């Protein structure tokens, strides 16, 4: 296809991506270099029968004027990145010199907003992914063995948790796990503790969120594994039967090696998708004990009168760096595929 034709075919799609994915990243970066203008204070002398007092007041007129002149705020360089809500260099340095043990230092470190959120995001990613892969594989194996006429409806049932949006999915589970809901009461009954609530401690909330994550992501792993199972070569399986291999041995030595590349694909996609975890935190109303990086950005942006663009921009940039690290193996994989295709 000549360059000219290619250009006109691709132009609309490319323009949309450039304007609404490429530019926002740059705009986000730009915002992160600025900080909201400070309010201009003025001293007003207020006199009443008991004497005169000077008061400091916000000069609304001057503040609005400044905001109009510099809507993005004043230039702050990389200052926002180092402040307490982000990488917190000063606080870390202070904690390092003042704390007597490593445990105390990590305690201080993990109470800083950014590191707290990073810890939750990473814990969530790495706690959800392995069970998802294992469960997805087992479910795929067992769906593969059921009667053909039952397969369709079974698959439909299994993929439901993936279809609904995370917010709705987490709400549906949250209402059941609630102390007044069916699962909540059951757990109370099971542990014989009428005051037990999954919302009561941060560990329990984290575990609930992780269980939700597994529930939501397993169908994806299932679907991919199920499709890959259909491509397992039959000849080695037959040979193995003749050689007297049990079903377990056949799965272990023929099916699983065949599925390795698919498993890495699932792991990478799963890690990347869970790195942006946001909706479950809102659905489970877990903001108090579990914040993710995405939630920090969301929190900076959701108030309508005072949005912290600079702070949100800086967190966005740091999140993108995280995504980039997770994305590198995917890119290398795609690169290799293209090489072999040509």
């Amino acid at each position: 296809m000549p360059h000219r034709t290619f250009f006109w075919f691709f132009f609309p799609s490319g323009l949309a991506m450039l304007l609404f994915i490429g530019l926002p990243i740059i705009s986000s970066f730009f915002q992160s270099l600025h900080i909201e203008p400070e309010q201009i204070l003025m001293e007003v002398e207020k006199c009443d029968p008991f004497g005169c007092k000077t008061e400091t007041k916000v000069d609304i007129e001057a503040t609005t004027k400044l905001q109009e002149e510099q809507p993005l705020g004043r230039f702050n360089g990389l200052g926002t990145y180092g402040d307490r809500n982000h990488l917190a260099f000063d606080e870390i340095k202070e904690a390092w010199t003042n704390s007597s043990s490593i445990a105390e230092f990590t305690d201080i470190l993990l109470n800083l907003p950014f590191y707290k959120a990073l810890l939750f995001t990473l814990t969530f990613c790495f706690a959800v992914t392995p069970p998802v892969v294992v469960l997805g594989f087992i479910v795929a194996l067992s769906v593969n063995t059921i009667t053909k006429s039952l397969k369709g409806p079974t698959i439909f049932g299994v993929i439901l948790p993936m279809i609904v949006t995370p917010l709705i999915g987490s709400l549906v589970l949250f209402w059941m796990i609630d102390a007044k809901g069916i699962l909540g009461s059951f757990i109370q009954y099971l542990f014989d503790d009428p005051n037990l609530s999954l919302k009561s401690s941060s560990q329990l909330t984290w575990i609930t969120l992780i269980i939700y994550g597994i529930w939501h992501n397993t169908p994806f792993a299932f679907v991919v594994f199920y499709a890959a199972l259909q491509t397992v070569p039959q000849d080695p399986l037959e040979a193995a039967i003749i050689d007297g291999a049990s079903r377990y041995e056949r799965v272990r030595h023929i099916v699983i090696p065949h599925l390795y590349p698919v498993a890495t694909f699932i792991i990478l996609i799963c890690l990347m998708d869970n790195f942006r975890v946001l909706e479950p935190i809102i659905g489970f109303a877990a903001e108090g004990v579990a914040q993710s990086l995405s939630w920090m950005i969301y929190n900076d942006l959701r108030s309508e009168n005072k949005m912290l663009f600079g702070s949100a921009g800086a967190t966005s940039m740091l999140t993108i760096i995280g995504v980039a690290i997770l994305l590198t193996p995917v890119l290398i994989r795609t690169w290799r595929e293209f090489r072999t295709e040509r």
Partner: protein
Amino acid sequence: MESKINRYSKQLILINSFFILAWLVVSVFPFIWTFWGSFKVKADFFSRADWMFAVTGVNTLIETGDTSTVKAYVESWTEGEFWKATMNTVIITVSVVTISLFLGTLGAYALSRSTYKYTFWILIAALIFRAMPHITLVSGYLFPFFQLNVWGILPTTIIVLVAINQPFTLWLLYSFFKTVPKELDESALIDGCSYFQAFRFVIMPVMWPGVVTAGLFSMMLAYNDFTVTSLLLNQQNYTMVPKINAYLGTIEHSGNYMWAVSSVVSATAPLFMIIMFFQRQLISGLTAGAVKG
């Protein structure tokens, strides 16, 4: 020999059926529970006394005179203005699907037929774009959109969702067009068609299976989106998902919680119907990237 591979012992079949049934309960029961509970009052669905109240509807009987009620549905749709949210969702979903398929088919066709090296870099860029968390993009939109005064309205959100959706649509349709034999449109070119004519008259008639799959994914993205719609739309223009979240925000009014429960059912029911019809396409789309590679 085929039969021998698929011959299982009785024990295995038993364990297997048990496992599958258990798993189905785990994945389906929450939805059945919510559906059932949406016809009860709050005192039953979140029953302090006994969880069985949610099944039997004791308080619902006391409050409304029947064991099940559609009060929450009626109120959320009228008073809660869920009809408006539904309309917005329909407008956004239909527009996003149409526009992103239009752009996507053209772009992906060009990518699949060009032999130059830059197609590879474009696809890699699309992959990187796809991995960007939506919230980081939204943080980049808000400020310029406020300055341009386009924040809060439906068209902006539609364009944003189309753009966010492009990378995935491009990849999906690219791998689909690769399976359509090149000879088909090449012969049309030899017969004197332009590239656009070849696309319009030769490729378009055979591309529908791929387009249906891509359309299904665009639909799910637009229909399910929370991040973009909740931050880029103003309250009057909210779609279903942010609207449900807004119902939760006002816990002071006890009625609103049941509004959220009934709206969750209203929002998921159409989605489940569509997936029931297009299950095959959904699965083929999910596996397109994984299995072939």
